């Protein structure tokens, strides 16, 4: 097996004195797609934000290595420039800031870090239009303020557009399917699927199995009460869908006995 891109060992996380994640172990090899499933409040989003570097969490034990380096000591922007991308469950609105301007600033911050030349307005526009076509996004979204007044579906597509532009090595999708109708889901999933490759890995956080019909995972992990209680192949997702999360609870209870 190739050297893992991401290694999470015994990760324990608290927020405001409450334990949220306990003893998380996870290894993602280059090119792999892992899905994290679990009921609401199981800690899925916390895991995503801890990887992205949001403030307000206490890491009480464990470590996270990304490309063999300690990820937790890096600032969010350093992680981003290093290839860690988080598609937000609730993309943030930035009033008055033109979406194109924002996307270009982000792309150039990452390119600069990689030692690539920064894109000028013309080259950037060509690139962004190409990516937008894939996501069936309307050009007018480029001229509007970042996420402001976007519909739920437009916001999620804007996230995937950013992912496509920033070309990350590890993409974390936090409930990207929530709030999407079936057509939008298909478009978004196709966008993600087109980015799969030997060098890029995904961590797909989702509540429902339906996204995984389009983005077929290599591994599925079930998170409950802050612990990974079950791991398996893609069939685990189907089983969950059929039996519901209560099945997991019962399993866990059985194991505990």
């Amino acid at each position: 097996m190739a050297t893992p891109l991401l290694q999470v060992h015994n990760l324990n996380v608290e927020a405001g004195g409450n334990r949220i994640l306990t003893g998380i172990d996870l290894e993602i090899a280059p090119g792999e797609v892992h899905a994290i499933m679990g009921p609401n409040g199981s800690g899925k989003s916390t895991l995503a934000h801890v990887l992205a570097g949001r403030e307000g969490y206490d890491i009480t034990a464990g470590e996270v290595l990304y490309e063999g380096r300690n990820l937790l000591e890096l600032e969010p922007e350093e992680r981003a420039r290093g290839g860690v991308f988080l598609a937000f469950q609730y993309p943030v609105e930035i009033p008055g800031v033109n979406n194109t301007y924002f996307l270009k600033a982000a792309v150039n911050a990452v390119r600069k870090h990689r030692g690539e030349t920064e894109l000028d307005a013309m080259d950037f526009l060509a690139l962004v239009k190409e990516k937008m076509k894939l996501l069936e996004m309307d050009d007018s979204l480029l001229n509007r303020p970042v996420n402001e007044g976007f519909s739920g579906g437009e916001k999620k597509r804007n996230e995937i557009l950013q992912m496509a532009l920033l070309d990350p090595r590890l993409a974390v999708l936090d409930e990207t399917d929530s709030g999407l109708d079936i057509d939008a889901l298909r478009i978004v999933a196709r966008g993600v699927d087109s980015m799969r490759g030997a060098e890029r890995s995904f961590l797909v956080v989702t509540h429902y199995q339906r996204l995984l019909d389009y983005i077929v995972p290599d591994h599925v992990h079930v998170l409950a009460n802050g612990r990974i209680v079950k791991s398996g192949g893609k069939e685990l997702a189907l089983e969950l869908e059929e039996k519901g999360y209560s099945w997991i609870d019962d399993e866990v209870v059985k194991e505990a006995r």
Partner: protein
Amino acid sequence: MSTDSIRRVTEGEYKYGFTTEIETDSVPPGLNEDVIRLISAKKEEPEFMLEWRLKAYRQWLKMKEPHWAHVEYPPVDYQEIVYYSAPKQKPKLKSLDEVDPELLETFEKLGISLEEQKRLAGVAVDAVFDSVSVATTYKKKLGELGILFCSFSEAVREHPELVQKYLGSVVPYTDNFFAALNSAVFSDGSFVYVPKGVRCPMELSTYFRINAADTGQFERTLIIADEGAYVSYLEGCTAPMRDTNQLHAAVVELVALDDAEIKYSTVQNWYPGDKDGKGGIYNFVTKRGACRGRNSKISWTQVETGSAITWKYPSCILQGDNSVGEFYSVAVTNHYQQADTGTKMIHIGKNTRSTIISKGISAGHGQQSYRGLVKVMKGADRARNYSQCDSMLMGDRCGAHTFPYIEVKNPSARLEHEATTSKIGEDQIYYCKQRGLSEEDAVNLIVNGFCKEVFRELPMEFAVEAQKLLSVTLEDAVG
């Protein structure tokens, strides 16, 4: 974002702190009728001007310094101020070659060299250094159109009939304490007259500097747009670092006749004092425009980042029917800066309209108040006003306050007022950082977005300058 990181971004210091050593010709500190006579004599003014100054002085003696603004500062000793200071004049200057090289260097340090300005297409610069204009460009081209753009002193000498007709007609010397003081001792400033039907083809621009130590700067500006005329005027300031407080009490009067339009844009960056609130300029300014004619329009756009204390309410008197007044403002207070600023829109004519967009940003220990009056007089049928006041707080030690006053005496008037106060969003900063932007870039991006509605009212080059100024002001500051 943590309070510490916000603090870091807001604690950058003033970048334009230096003084220029140029011989100055000053009068001793203090104010009395003799000093006023001396100022008037040095400026070779006609008799009416001296009389007006003296009347203003006598009025000022009867007035008290106002203290209703939400600002605090130690008492000003008006007898310690030097009321006149001019760079020692060589004979009149015809070209930049004759200007003191050290002065030119100062401008270059500020990135606004006259050399550069001359090359900048379409910008005529009247540089006010301390109290006397030392260089004026593009005069000839303007002259061909009949546009007068000169120092106030020159206007008093060359065009006394215009000065006498309009001076004090918008801001009378009885108006307020600081306006009275200015009227008595004003040193110099700019004068613009655009004749009937003429559209001024370039942005007119002046850079003000306060230089000699302890010299109060009393600018006087008068802009007249005759029937159907249009002019856009830019005023920008930076000032050198000073340890003692300096009083700046300017008066700006605008007059727009029938179908005329005046656009007045300011980027103000007077020395704000150091991180601990020491030093800095007191900026007590009276700015007012009269939309005297039908269908006239006056727009104020200001970006205020400087001064220790700002007391300033650019206003519009909407006298002519269908006249329009606008006020677009971005004000930043950082460290220990205090600002009490806003506008007055006085609706007198029928169908008069006004728009107020005010964006306040407070960081560090900055305290900021928006104070605005919308007044609709009895005859102002169908007057309309829209006001929007937004405040952004950075950190937890600053303050934002809003004091809107509304007086309506005509039932057909329609007024809207919206106000918001928000903290700079930690989730917004996190989002930007997750996309690879540094914290500082993220803050600049968010702040510029917040101010966008105002920035887009500024002429292009000025908008760029304003954005830069904002990022310098808030550097290391997100607090």
